[in-house]
């Protein structure tokens, strides 16, 4: 198939064809929708950046194929005795790409850099009060309270070389202007940055001095952002790239059917949900109910949940690739509440009954806000949901917009109901409780994405206890209680876990991790 195409091309247009003849088995080309905006691992806390830089930089710990924490620059770690915090025993003999040795000083420096005001990742270190270098290969992180999950929360905390950063005036992440670390990198990781043309192409080459065991056979990795998903798919199918993440899920079947290509499917950790205006006194967009907020009645919230036919959404919009969700993290994530794994089913009659009980036998109208460029099929989902709400009498006036405009609207409470997706950054249930369920509290930096301000005293009381509890069983019991409360109160309508669909050439072997991170060190090209 491939040979014939090349022959044809050679005959017809001479030597025009370039990418398609990438028979050079070990140059690996891949594409994704977004370019990492910086090479500085502390400047921006965003998935494209952290995912890409995990190839170049390393943290004290890292996540393995199954998302579990394993040692990276730290070989082992244990809770401190006598005070709150953790001791990390560092790996010896590790060098940065430029040859400098890795020591505890670099960890301290990176901590100071990443927890500085100029760093967007500093929220990771809000529990940390101090970092102490014990010796060249031992570092203590002191926390204000017991923090059993601290090692899990810093898997993306990447270590820079102190001398390199200071010599190049990059001791702090760039805030307004660029600095050396924006375009250059010097990590301990399996790959080194070879060239970078932002928005166009970034090239990685293996780090010959990497401490780890090399599992890949890539001699050069070329990354290209391709924003338009159809173009990305064309690039894959024409052979110009070897791998793309993600592809539109409706195209997965077609790609799978083609010779020489395969599709990697999985579940992301992101749960998609509808949020309610718990705190609003009135609806903003209603044409018939202007003096009250029906969503303050739990029966109305339940009615909304009963109106959603998740199976139809799965079958038609998602081609059977989603997993319905009962809570804000998917099964398998730590803290997932097994005993609350039932979700309110599709039951339009019950929904109408509940509406009638709540005093809205003829339903009411309201405004539904959705982004249209954030989640997979977000706009189509909302249109389908609006149609389902309408079927029980809840007349949703749908308005969709790009995410750049969407978050500010939610922050200004400009919604009657909204769509939100949440991926637990720490891969633990505590994360969504902290951001989505705790009462908004700017001072303590809690509930910052709880736009509707769901507020429950017991949940607020349990959160710090969950954060500090070392005993896993006791901790789970408290989480179960929070999940039960939010289900009873219908704090959100959890819909489903977002699917993860990648496509690659058949001859490529790789690992699809649930956080949608793509790591070059697991790639082998046959």
């Amino acid at each position, binding site marked *: 198939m491939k040979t014939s195409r090349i022959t044809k091309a050679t005959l017809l247009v001479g030597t025009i064809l370039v990418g398609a003849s990438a028979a050079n088995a070990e140059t690996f080309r891949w594409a994704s929708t977004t370019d990492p905006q910086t090479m500085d691992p502390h400047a*921006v806390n965003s998935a494209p950046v952290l995912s890409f830089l995990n190839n170049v930089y390393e943290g004290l710990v890292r996540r393995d194929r199954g998302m579990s924490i394993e040692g990276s620059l730290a070989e082992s770690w244990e809770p401190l005795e006598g005070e709150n915090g953790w001791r990390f025993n560092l790996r010896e003999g590790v060098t940065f790409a430029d040859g400098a040795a890795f020591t505890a000083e670099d960890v301290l420096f990176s901590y100071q850099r990443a927890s500085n005001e100029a760093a967007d990742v500093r929220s990771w270190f809000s529990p940390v009060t101090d970092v102490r270098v014990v010796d060249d290969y031992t570092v203590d992180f002191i926390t204000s309270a017991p923090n059993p999950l601290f090692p899990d929360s810093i898997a993306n905390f990447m270590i820079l070389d102190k001398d390199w950063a200071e010599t190049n005036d990059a001791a702090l992440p760039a805030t307004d202007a660029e600095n050396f670390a924006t375009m250059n990198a010097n990590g301990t990781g399996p790959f080194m940055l070879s060239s970078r043309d932002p928005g166009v192409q970034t090239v990685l080459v293996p780090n010959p001095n990497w401490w780890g065991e090399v599992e890949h056979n890539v001699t050069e990795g070329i990354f290209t952002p391709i924003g338009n998903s159809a173009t990305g798919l*064309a690039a894959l199918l024409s052979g110009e790239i070897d791998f793309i993440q993600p592809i539109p899920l409706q195209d997965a079947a077609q790609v799978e059917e083609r010779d020489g290509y395969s599709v990697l499917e999985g579940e992301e950790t992101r749960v998609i949900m509808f949020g309610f205006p718990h705190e609003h006194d009135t609806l903003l967009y209603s044409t018939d109910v202007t003096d009250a907020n029906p969503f303050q009645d739990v029966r109305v919230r339940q009615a909304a949940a009963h109106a959603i036919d998740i199976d139809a959404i799965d079958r038609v919009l998602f081609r059977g690739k989603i997993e319905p969700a009962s809570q804000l993290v998917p099964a398998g994530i730590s803290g997932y509440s097994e005993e609350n794994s039932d979700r309110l089913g599709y039951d339009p009659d019950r929904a109408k009954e509940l509406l009638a009980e709540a005093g809205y036998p003829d339903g009411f109208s309201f405004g539904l806000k959705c982004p249209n460029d954030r989640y997979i099929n977000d706009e189509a989902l909302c249109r389908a949901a609006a149609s389902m709400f309408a079927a029980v009498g809840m007349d949703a006036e749908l308005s969709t917009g790009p995410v750049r405009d969407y978050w500010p609207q939610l922050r200004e409470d400009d919604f009657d109901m909204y769509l939100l997706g949440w991926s637990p*950054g720490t891969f633990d249930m505590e994360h969504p409780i902290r951001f989505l369920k705790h009462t908004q509290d700017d001072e303590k930096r809690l509930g910052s994405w709880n736009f509707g301000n769901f507020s429950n005293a017991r949940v607020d009381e349990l959160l710090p206890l969950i954060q500090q509890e070392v005993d896993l069983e006791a901790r789970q019991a408290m989480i179960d209680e929070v999940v039960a409360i939010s289900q009873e109160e219908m704090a959100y309508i959890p819909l489903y876990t977002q699917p993860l669909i990648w496509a690659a050439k058949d001859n490529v072997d790789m690992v699809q991790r649930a956080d949608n991170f793509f790591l070059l060190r697991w790639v082998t090209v046959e």
Partner: protein
Amino acid sequence: MAYFILKRLFQSIFVMLAVAFLAFSLFRFVGDPVSQMTGVETSVQDQEQLREELGLNDPFVVQFYRFTTDILKGDFGYSYRTRQPVNEMIASRIPATIELGITALMISLIVGIPAGVYTALRTRGFATQTILLTTLVGVSIPTFVIGIVLIFLFGVTLGWMPTFGRGGTVDLGGWTTSFLTLEGWSYLILPAITLGVYQLTLTMRLVRAEMMEVMRSDYIRFATARGIPQRKLHYRHALGNTMIPVITIIGLQFGGVIAFSIVTESVFQWPGMGLLFLESVRFVDIPVMGVYLVVIAFFFVLVNLVVDILYLMIDPRLRVKEAI
């Protein structure tokens, strides 16, 4: 002439300022840059602090003053998204867009003018009807659909052309060009056709309409009666007379070509200014958007000036004061 050019330059500065003002007032409504610059875990206070540091809380007039004075001082600022200097970002993307636009325009002229002449001379022929219909269909399907169809036809099914990007460029002292290698052309041709289809149809139809009109005018009839050869008549006398409106419209279209390359660049992942602008809109990267619009305005003003001068040279009748 010198007075004319000076006057136009002065007007151009006014146009640029007006565009800068309009562009800048638009940014306030595009979205919130801070929520795009920070991760989900960044607290509300930290976002507010960043907003303050970026001067986004200042009154509009203050922000606009800062923006214009900085640009006049040659300080184009730094991108919110990548923190790179904006002038470098734009400069590195200009060649791609200009080359794409010029190629598209060339295609439209090289194909459009002869096609216009042909269809004007043979009004009822089968080939004429086919050409007219095909080009009409071409402009009746949205650019992004045409682009994708071309990509899948020539890139995937036939495998003749690359599907995305701008490979095979040669660096000529800061200006990367696709024109010097066959590979460069292979990347350029599909996006240029996609972008040029609309201009091509417009050129052809304008040339055709003007030609048909001129051919029926008295002096051409007299010329025919006097026995001037057909070929000379068509190309020297008739075509020459059609050039004024064609040059006006096509020249004025160049700004549009550059702007519409946003869509083409996005479909072909063509690393030009349009793609950069689209990414910047998505991230509410105000400095980049602002400079992009000013650069586009500059191009327009330049092209407009050239068109006006050409006008003067082609048609001496217009050298009256009012026309200036």
